């Protein structure tokens, strides 16, 4: 079919330069012309630039993403909707999704992070779920630079102000610091919501004649081209793109949340979707595509903040706190009444039509018209070249064992203390004490207490455990192994709290996919994730791809952040990471190996990111998860903590001191592994290991053995005054707990108070 659209008076001519400015390649432009059978209008160019941006179209990533496993009996909704949904029993389900707001946060950290939280909340409550928990996965450069400290302070403040105001507890996450993220911080926000299975609603336009209604905040000129902005590298010029960052209003979000849930439960609507990236354009086009129907929208009906906005601006605005709703015909008044109760606007702006066309009008004038759903389905897919970079190979194959120890390392307590103050390892309390983690009165284990957060499900005995994770260094050094570890570690974290890992969402943060070395990282990391998801039976239910995380200095570490959800059948099984009782036996499940590659030890103590990352044996991980879950459910486990950055010594120290109010000591003997190098034994990051404290070592040992998991008693919980003592062979070192605690709890506050002092100086100077 041919379509018709009329340029508006004053529209510029469609030139190659204008097309290029919209990020549309000559080949893509030719496809548009072929689809339309004519030259597109400016409005149509704007629509294409948004929907065919990487952010909306996944044009470089989709073929690879299709290899991920997405099925399990408990998966109610896989990828392709606003959020994934899994059943948790008792007729209940959990909706969850993670999404990036990296580019906006790099130029305007407070609003960038705040609107990231707002967007992911809307993705979850548009599924009919009430949000019950938020998580954040953050990556920054070195805390030594003022710019990074400014970004940390702004991002944390933005996340806190938004989530605190809406009243959703922020309960977990992960934060890492490495120079690789200097120019491109990563801000990934995850939301988890609860719903009854029958309340699940999808964003699929249906029913010819049904009205399309814009709901919530009015549309303004903010955030225009945000999706395209997120689909290019950052440069000096991006400071000038600050107006592309939206401004959040958590109070309106809270009203929109309540109104949307009321609307969904009223039965007056058939579909609802957030107007997120690319605003009205993507929400309307995607809803039409899912329902395989036509839609027509009149931009003069859209409630706007200011007069004189063009269809182009209205379609591409990313003003926050807006929803697009398809209602049942004849129920318009009821829909408006519900919105009015919450002091929000609702206006009919279009309708679902039988004619297979995506049409935008400005009053009577058709300004954009695309045939059928081809606007979404005709976007090209790319299969870029993939080749591992020589630099990464050189780093991986470097012999890290030959790196000589620093003189101070003669005392491993010195090394342990330094590692505890490494910002990646140190307590993140400075961050999470700015987040309300206890609102909604369901937080069983909040930030800093357990390997994952635990949220009870009211009205049942159940709880869920949630965690984000990814070590980008491992992925850089070996993308396939790193991708496996990201999933395996998130699963291990969730299992350490007593929860069965069930499913993941992911946020794939990479550089420019047109570079072969970046696309290699992407493809291999996704393959690695797929390996682990299949082995651990944690399918992917959705997520987000964020490419072009690079600047003239280079790309970020490839960082496929995993958001894992697990289920505890009994909330009373929730297990923390800290020792609880003097005299308990301390056991290590899993086995140390001679592995130092990619470790925080090498990075922080030796300034080196090199070597092969630790091996990831997925059969062993699966056995380990089974063993720890059985031991916890049998009531034998007092604490469980996985070994990750900083290795066994850091895990033991954390189990002693992470709970500031009740530290406990430990007497540890690692002589069984005296043949390993001391630093690999203490600080190597061999996977598949959990430190357990128990009153019944024999029972835990029997369970682990039955699961085929190596297990050994390595020590005993002691009073705090005894400190943490480590013995290898005939040598014993003892660290006073206050020394370790000061390093661990004091490092980030000390670094950030420097930032506060700087801002006072800056204000004084101004």
């Amino acid at each position, binding site marked *: 079919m041919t379509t018709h659209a009329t340029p508006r008076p004053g529209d510029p001519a469609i030139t190659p330069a204008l097309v290029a400015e919209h990020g549309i390649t000559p080949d893509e432009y030719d496809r548009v012309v072929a689809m339309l059978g004519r030259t597109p209008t400016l409005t149509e160019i704007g629509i294409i630039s948004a929907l065919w941006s990487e952010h909306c179209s996944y044009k470089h990533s989709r073929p690879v993403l299709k290899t991920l496993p997405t099925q399990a009996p408990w998966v109610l909704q896989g990828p392709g909707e606003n959020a994934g949904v899994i059943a948790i029993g008792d007729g209940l389900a959990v909706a969850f999704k993670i999404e990036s707001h990296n580019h906006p946060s790099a130029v305007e950290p407070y609003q960038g992070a705040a609107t990231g939280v707002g967007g992911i909340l809307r993705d979850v409550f548009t599924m009919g779920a009430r949000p019950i928990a938020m998580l954040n996965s953050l990556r920054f450069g070195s805390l030594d630079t003022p710019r990074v400290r400014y970004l940390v302070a702004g991002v944390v403040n933005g996340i806190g102000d938004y989530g605190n105001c809406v009243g959703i507890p922020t309960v977990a996450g992960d934060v890492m610091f490495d120079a690789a993220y200097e120019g491109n911080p990563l801000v990934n926000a995850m939301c988890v919501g609860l719903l009854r299975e029958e309340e699940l609603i999808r964003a699929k336009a249906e029913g010819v004649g049904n009205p399309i209604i814009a709901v919530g905040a009015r549309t303004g000129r903010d955030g225009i081209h945000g999706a395209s902005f997120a689909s290019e590298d950052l440069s000096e010029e991006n400071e000038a793109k600050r107006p592309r960052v939206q401004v959040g209003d958590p109070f309106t979000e*809270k009203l929109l949340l309540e109104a949307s849930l009321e609307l969904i439960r009223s039965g007056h609507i058939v579909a609802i979707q957030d107007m997120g990236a690319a605003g009205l354009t993507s929400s309307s086009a995607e809803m039409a595509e899912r329902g395989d129907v036509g839609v027509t929208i009149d931009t003069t009906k859209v409630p706007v903040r200011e007069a004189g906005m063009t269809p182009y601006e209205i379609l591409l605005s990313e003003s926050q706190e807006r929803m697009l709703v398809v209602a049942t015909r004849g129920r318009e008044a009821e829909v408006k009444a519900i919105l009015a109760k919450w002091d929000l606007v609702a206006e009919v702006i279009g309708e679902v039509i039988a004619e297979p066309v995506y049409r935008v009008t400005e009053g009577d004038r058709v300004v954009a018209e695309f045939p059928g759903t081809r606007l979404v389905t005709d976007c090209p897919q790319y299969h870029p070249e993939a080749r591992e970079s020589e630099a990464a190979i050189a780093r991986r194959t470097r012999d890290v064992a030959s790196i000589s120890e620093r003189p101070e390392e003669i005392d491993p307590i010195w090394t342990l203390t330094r590692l505890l103050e490494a910002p990646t390892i140190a307590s993140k309390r400075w961050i999470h004490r700015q987040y309300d983690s*206890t609102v909604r*009165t369901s937080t069983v284990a909040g930030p800093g207490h357990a390997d994952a957060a635990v949220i009870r499900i009211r009205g049942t005995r159940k709880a869920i455990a949630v965690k984000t994770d990814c070590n980008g260094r491992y992925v850089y050094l070996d993308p396939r192994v790193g991708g496996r570890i990201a999933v395996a570690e998130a699963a291990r974290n969730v299992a350490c709290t007593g929860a069965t890992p069930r499913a993941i969402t992911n946020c794939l943060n990479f550089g420019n996919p047109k570079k072969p070395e970046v696309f290699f990282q992407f493809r291999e990391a996704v393959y690695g994730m797929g390996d682990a998801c299949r082995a651990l039976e944690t399918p992917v239910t959705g997520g987000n791809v964020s490419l072009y995380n690079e600047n003239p200095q280079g790309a970020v570490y490839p960082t496929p952040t995993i958001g894992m959800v697990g289920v505890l059948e009994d909330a009373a099984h929730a297990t923390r990471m800290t020792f609880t009782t003097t005299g308990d036996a301390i056991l290590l499940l899993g086995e140390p190996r001679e592995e130092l590659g990619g470790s925080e030890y090498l990075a922080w103590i030796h300034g080196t990111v090199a070597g092969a990352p630790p091996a990831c044996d997925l059969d062993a991980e699966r056995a380990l998860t089974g063993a720890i879950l059985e031991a916890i459910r049998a009531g034998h486990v007092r604490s469980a903590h996985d070994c990750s950055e900083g290795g066994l010594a850091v895990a033991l120290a954390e189990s002693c001191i992470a709970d500031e109010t009740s530290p406990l000591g430990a007497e540890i003997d690692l002589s069984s592994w005296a043949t390993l190098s001391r630093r690999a034994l203490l600080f190597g990051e061999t996977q598949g290991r959990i430190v357990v404290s128990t009153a019944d070592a024999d029972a835990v040992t029997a369970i682990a053995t039955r699961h085929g998991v190596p297990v050994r008693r390595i020590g005993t919980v002691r009073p705090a005054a005894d400190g943490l003592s480590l013995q290898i062979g005939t040598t014993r070192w003892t660290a006073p707990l206050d020394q370790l605690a000061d390093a661990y709890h004091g490092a980030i506050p000390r670094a950030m108070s420097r930032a506060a002092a700087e801002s006072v100086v800056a204000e004084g100077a101004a």
Partner: protein
Amino acid sequence: MKVGVVSFPGSNCDEDALLAIVERLHESAVLLWHKDHDLQGADVVILPGGFSYGDYLRSGAIARFSPIMQEVVAHARRGGPVVGICNGFQIACEAGLLPGALLRNVSLQFRSMPVTLRVETTQTVFTHAARTGARLTMPIAHGDGRYTADAETLARLEGEGQVVFRYIDAHGEPTEAANPNGSMRNIAGVCNPGGTVVGMMPHPERALEPLLGSTDGLVLFESLLTSVKA
């Protein structure tokens, strides 16, 4: 006992307070809509936490003008019990039900953490069942919690026994280190002269179950029972 919990636009602890009454005390509770003028026969009114009207002007400053607040103020004037928690404390101060004001935390940051309180008086509807000097642990979660009043008001509050709770350290002392927000004299909660209106920044409704780490808030809600039924 019937408790009315006010829902302002932006309240986010209203459901928590309602569930505290229904699930933990097994008493009846209703949500009171901010646009209404009806307390629905509530014996006790709770002004819950949250960010009423976004708190964009000043915490609690707009909520005091809502229709339901006229009824809450009238209820308080009749000697009816009113408890303000967090944002509810700020609203009660703005509405003139309690003396003083809650300013930005001295750290200029939001604070979410457990604190320990000392009960300074049992002569209130919310501490009747507690013991003077009792130590209670429960969460705080606020950005504007720095209790502030002029010297005369402070002297009166101290003299008349209107300081209800103070932040204390592990040794039971109201030290600067124990003060999470810079409140004058470590004040965490105050009451009106009759002890019928109580406001506090910490969240007792979040400390009612062992599963959530503390049951120290129970004695406060139980105080409401004895106050109303007496």
